[in-house]
């Protein structure tokens, strides 16, 4: 019985210890961000591997999600004769929720796991300690550019996801199912507010980007430097990012849209 309690206590303490580590790590990153102004090239290289290489999966997922949304919404809306409001329904759900959330989940699968594996392997193959020996701060050289690349890429990717998704639902709704072209866009423009819906979606994607990149670089930096440890850390990145993004999404939605 006492052993059991001790195990719980131990597990709880470990969780808090990791959380504390992660917070301190985050503060170190934030303090070191100015290094990027002196060496912008580091950032560009990471933007390529984090952002540009995620482009394909984001665009394809956005297109299919938009097309499926258009198809399914149309089937329900047409029963009430309100298929003209397909535009606002799809645009609002994409801009407010699906764009930021799905992009963050895909991002952690495509880019976050790669970041963790990369940093973890650098640690396992002692590259990070070599850098330290050469008086190069691995935090500034390796971690900060990757973190900032994630933070910058996320809102851009989320905006592309939403935009492509709306185009996908336009193709299905107007092109295949015969929703009126003018009604699709005009109703959308009437209902979607720039300052509330679009801006809140962007804020969400920035927050998700910070959370997802934070988890990814921390798990990599904190990984047990063995083959198994790196693989565990990579798995943890994807799982924890999913939890964090979905939890944050609920909180943010409650704050942003809860009072309507």
């Amino acid at each position, binding site marked *: 019985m006492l052993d059991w309690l001790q195990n719980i206590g131990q597990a709880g303490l470990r969780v808090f210890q990791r959380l504390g580590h992660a917070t301190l790590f985050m503060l170190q990153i934030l303090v070191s961000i100015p290094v990027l102004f002196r060496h912008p*090239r580091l950032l*560009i*290289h990471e*933007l*390529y591997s984090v*952002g*540009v290489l995620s*482009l394909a999966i984001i665009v394809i997922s956005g297109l299919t999600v938009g097309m499926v949304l258009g198809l399914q919404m149309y089937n329900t809306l047409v029963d*009430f004769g*309100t298929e003209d409001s397909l535009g606002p329904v799809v*645009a609002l759900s994409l*801009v407010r929720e699906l764009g930021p959330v799905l992009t963050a989940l895909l991002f952690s699968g495509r880019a976050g796991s790669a970041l963790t594996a990369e940093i973890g392997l650098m640690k396992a193959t002692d590259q990070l300690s070599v850098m330290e020996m050469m008086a190069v701060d691995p935090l500034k050289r390796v971690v900060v550019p990757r973190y900032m690349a994630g933070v910058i*890429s996320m*809102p*851009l*990717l989320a*905006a*592309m996801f*939403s*935009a*492509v998704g*709306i185009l996908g639902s336009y193709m299905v709704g107007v092109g295949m199912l015969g929703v009126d072209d003018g009604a699709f*866009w005009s109703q*959308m*423009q*009437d209902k*979607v*507010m*720039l*300052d509330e*819906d*679009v801006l809140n*979606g*962007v804020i969400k994607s920035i927050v998700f980007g910070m959370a997802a990149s934070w988890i990814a670089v921390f798990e990599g930096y904190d990984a047990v430097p063995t083959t198994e440890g790196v693989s565990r850390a990579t798995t943890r990145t994807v799982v924890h990012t999913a939890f964090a993004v979905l939890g944050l999404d609920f909180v943010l939605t409650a704050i942003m849209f809860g009072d309507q």
Partner: protein
Amino acid sequence: MQTSRTVEILVGIFIALGMAAFFMLAMKVSNITAFAETDTYRLQARFDNIGGLKERSPVRIGGVRIGRVESINYDDEQLEAIVNLRINSQHKRIPDDSAASIYTAGLLGEQYISLEPGGSEEFYADGDTIDETQSAFVLERMVGKFLIQEAENSERR
């Protein structure tokens, strides 16, 4: 790994695409007039019943949107709903005997306030109250009236 120039060009394209997506969300998906709406003036209207009118419902003249409902309150002295409207400043010339009614777009659509211009030479100014109002059309009430009428008719027969 590609040469540094290719990488930089690709990153440039990536950022340009992201900006284009933002631009599309701002211009095509939402109404950019959200910025222009900072330049507005207030009107007030009192209704017995506002039906399903909500904050941010449109205000129209002749079907053209000229503003939005800013807030809805209830005055428990006069037992009326007070609706505050924000009208875009470019529509300054609304005659001060215009009437406000609450209509429904389509049978089940959203509700909006329609202003019918009167013939007065004077125009509404900031903070004025619209006197002539017509309450929302409530479907249940109309159905109820219709049923009572039917019952009376069949009794007479």
